[in-house]
């Protein structure tokens, strides 16, 4: 069997929970992590006689996503019932959209990094529709049956369906990551994977290279992480290729991805596919949006991460990896651009600080940049001070810790803490001479060919200067002395 003879076709259905204040059809709070069955009411629990009323914010968020993914917005659309029985679905139907989704026919350009190169790829978006989430089944060992938590019932979702345009797990990953960053940029979803706020179903088929017809596809459910999606795609492609190579045929089926085992298992075949008996939801009115409203939402769409990444690479000379990491967080990318605007510090230097120490602090403390006292101007000046040799990198870290927590002038900190770097040879000569006097053995070692002895000597000089000596300058003086002797 030769894997290389085959092409993998991937289409993705992404479910994203929207971060509205209240649920989609009632006034319960849309909140994760509260005590079970405390954020639910007769409406989201589907009690007899209760009726849904649509949260307008959900439509607004979905239209924004539609604009971001270059979709046609259906100003007039309806909601439909998807009927099926399951204990986590209290009405035994999910209110969704069937034949007329809110958004349709869009695309998303993603940057794919494969084999060390970066290329742009356009992925078609079939549709985006709004729907309600179901509850959650809980299994407790102290109880024989299952328990239901209705808190998640009625949490608003958008389902984003892609065209079968991806040709590898790497492309699928790039697509998923771009979708996630777009949701974050629009500030319409928490995107917390561990809380299940983004989930996806993966459709995979394979065909011999050169074929124009698609192979039979299989859908994998329960894919909860992006890396899991990649593993699921690779596993499924290899499974299908193996079947075809052995002369078998692929049956259209739904499979369940088991990430722990790294394999998918059949869930149901096409014959067992459920008939959801969709029909228009009679309890809700047709959604009618006026053009001005839709256009106004379009104007609110910011520059999106995929476009921003490409621009950062071009405009600031950043690598793809650095640009991606910066753009991933709207806050980091704003900090970067505002700091880079000073033009006195190098973009690369600013980027390194953001992706290094700033990211570390954010991860360790869980704080956002806005939670600290750091400003773009201060970051730019800090990098400028280091790059100009005014302070050492080590002193820079000291300054950084202070400006994170205090609203203080950097020059004053340098003065107060006596951090200014000494580059003046006349001031450093005494220190260098002292170190030479006390470390004759290392000098002999260096002369004997042990080049790393020089590093030790520079370190001793730094120590003697209490960190203030310019290491490059002191290295220069050391070499001058060694050469002289």
């Amino acid at each position, binding site marked *: 069997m030769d894997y290389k003879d085959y092409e993998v076709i991937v289409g993705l259905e992404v479910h994203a929970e929207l971060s509205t204040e209240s649920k989609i059809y009632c006034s319960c709070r849309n909140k994760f992590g509260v005590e079970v069955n405390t954020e639910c009411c*007769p409406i989201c*629990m*589907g*009690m*007899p*006689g*209760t*009726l*849904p*009323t*649509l949260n307008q914010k959900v439509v607004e968020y979905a239209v924004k996503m539609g604009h971001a993914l270059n979709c046609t917005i259906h100003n007039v659309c309806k909601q439909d*019932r998807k*009927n099926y*029985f399951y*204990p986590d679905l*209290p*009405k*035994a*139907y999910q209110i969704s959209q069937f034949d007329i989704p809110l958004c349709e026919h869009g695309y998303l350009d993603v940057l794919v990094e494969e084999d060390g190169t970066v290329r742009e790829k356009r992925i078609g978006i079939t549709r985006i529709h709004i729907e309600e989430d179901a509850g959650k089944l809980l299994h407790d060992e102290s109880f024989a049956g299952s328990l*239901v938590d209705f808190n998640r019932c009625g949490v608003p979702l958008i389902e984003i369906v892609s065209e079968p345009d991806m040709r590898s797990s790497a492309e699928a990953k790039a697509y998923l990551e771009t979708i996630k960053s777009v949701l974050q940029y629009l500030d319409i979803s928490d995107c917390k994977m561990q809380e299940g706020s983004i989930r996806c179903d993966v459709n995979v088929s394979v065909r011999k290279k050169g074929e124009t017809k698609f192979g039979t596809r299989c859908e994998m459910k329960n894919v909860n992480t992006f890396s899991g999606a990649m593993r699921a795609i690779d596993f499924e492609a290899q499974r299908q290729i193996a079947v075809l190579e052995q002369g078998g045929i692929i049956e259209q089926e739904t499979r369940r991805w088991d990430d722990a085992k790294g394999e998918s298992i059949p869930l149901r075949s096409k014959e067992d596919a459920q*008939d959801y*008996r*969709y*029909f228009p939801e*009679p*309890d*809700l*009115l047709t959604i009618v949006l006026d053009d001005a409203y839709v256009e106004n939402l379009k104007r609110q769409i910011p520059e999106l991460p995929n476009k921003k990444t490409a621009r950062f690479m071009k405009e600031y000379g950043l690598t793809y990896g650095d640009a991606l990491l910066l753009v991933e967080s709207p806050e980091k990318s704003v900090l970067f651009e505002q700091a880079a605007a000073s033009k006195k510090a190098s973009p690369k230097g600013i980027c390194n600080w953001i992706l290094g120490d700033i990211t570390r602090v954010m991860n360790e403390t869980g704080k956002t940049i806005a939670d600290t006292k750091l400003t773009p101007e201060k970051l730019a000046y800090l990098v400028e001070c280091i790059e100009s040799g005014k302070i050492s990198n080590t002193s820079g870290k000291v300054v950084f810790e202070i400006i994170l927590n205090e609203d203080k002038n950097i020059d004053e900190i340098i003065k107060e803490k006596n951090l200014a770097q000494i580059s003046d040879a006349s001031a450093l000569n005494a220190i260098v001479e002292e170190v030479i006097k006390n470390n004759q053995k290392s000098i002999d070692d260096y002369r004997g060919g042990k080049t790393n002895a020089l590093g030790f000597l520079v370190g001793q000089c730094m120590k003697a200067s209490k960190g203030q000596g310019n290491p490059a300058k002191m290295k220069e003086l050391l070499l001058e002395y060694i050469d002289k002797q």
Partner: protein
Amino acid sequence: MKLYEMTASELSGQLKEKKISARELTEAVFARIDETESDIGAYITLNRETALKQADAVDQKRAAGEPLSPLAGIPVGIKDNICTKGMLTTCASRMLENFVPPYNATVMDKLAADDIVITGKLNMDEFAMGSSTETSYFKQTKNPADLTRVPGGSSGGSAAAVAAGEAVLALGSDTGGSIRQPSSFCGVVGLKPTYGSVSRYGLVAFASSLDQIGPIGKSVRDVAMLYSAICGPDKMDATSVRKIYPDFTRSLGKGISGLKLGLPKEYFGLGIDSETKNAVLAAAKLFEQNGAVVKEVSLPSTDYALSAYYIIASAEASSNLARFDGVKYGYRTPQYENLTEMYEKTRSEGFGTEVKRRILLGTFVLSSGYYDAYYKRAKLLQKRIAAEFASAFADCDLLLTPTTPGTAFKLGENTDDPLKMYAGDICTVTVNIAGLPALSIPCGTDSKGLPVGMQLIGAKFSEEQLLNAADWYESAAGLRAE
């Protein structure tokens, strides 16, 4: 005249003038219930203790000189598919035998604000599916005009209670005739309001796009009073129509001079009992003699209305009733091995035959491969029927038809023949399909002495005109003591 025999508007006046107290009135109604309920069987749940407390509260308010609504202290019975907070709401089904809603329907909040006295919850066909109240899981309600006959349905308990004096007024619900047909059978007045004018929040749904709550009373004025109290926009119901609703009692007494009354010929054809037909035509004559213009009109798609109705209503019902699955509330089968078996046994045991028949029918018409042939075509017919009504209302103010093809039938007469039972809805379903208001009012008796009802149909939101014409007729035909 006994208190329980009087109309709400008469009683309202007596209460206001402190000739009677709300407690006296409530006690009189419960005394009447004690006297006749064993024969009639209108109630599933009686609310005697709370009702007397409510009555006392009204009397205290009145004594304190607080402003009160005209309905304050009037005993009203509630169909058992309207959610009453803290009070059993069974839908006459085993499925909800023990269901006590933790919330009120919007109409109940409105009635509570008007200090109404709730007598109890009234019997009905199970989940409002039926035309005789015979599909109730709990009991058989009998027609007060003839105890061997059905009261009609599905709001049979509501109509029988009002006719027997077991409630001064009642709320029913009407999906295909469920207020008008029992009103006709029992000889009382019932209004099915324009779709969207009364909030459906808290009405246990049968067919969401057709259901409306409406009033049943002894007179047109009573119905206008209760309708005025329950109508109005509600943010809890997306289908409720935002507009200003007047006090409908003020629209009465305006006369009928120049009223253009249409008689749709399809409603007087095959299958309509001749005594019924003659009674309605006599009423038309009375209108004509008093200055109305009566003319024949045609609604050609009427023949298809029953099919369209049973498809749409059953489709929605199959989905609306899916939530009764034994998981959260209501009946759950005592023994099961797994989830699927729990669902199957719960629903097989919890629902009665007629409900299951309609769930199966609705599930079928929505199934892939059949949707286009049934549900979609029924929805197209719905549009056509509505358009035909609209063009009829371009020429007429109101339409006059029989409410039912015949008078009340015998208990058990139609229970084995669902199609025959369904055929009895021919005159009423079109109104729901088109979302129109319609009212049934007595127009005489047949040779067996049974009440005959006629139906006045109006354009959307024409309740003022509809009630005024009915009120005029009631007076002109000598149906009330003036």
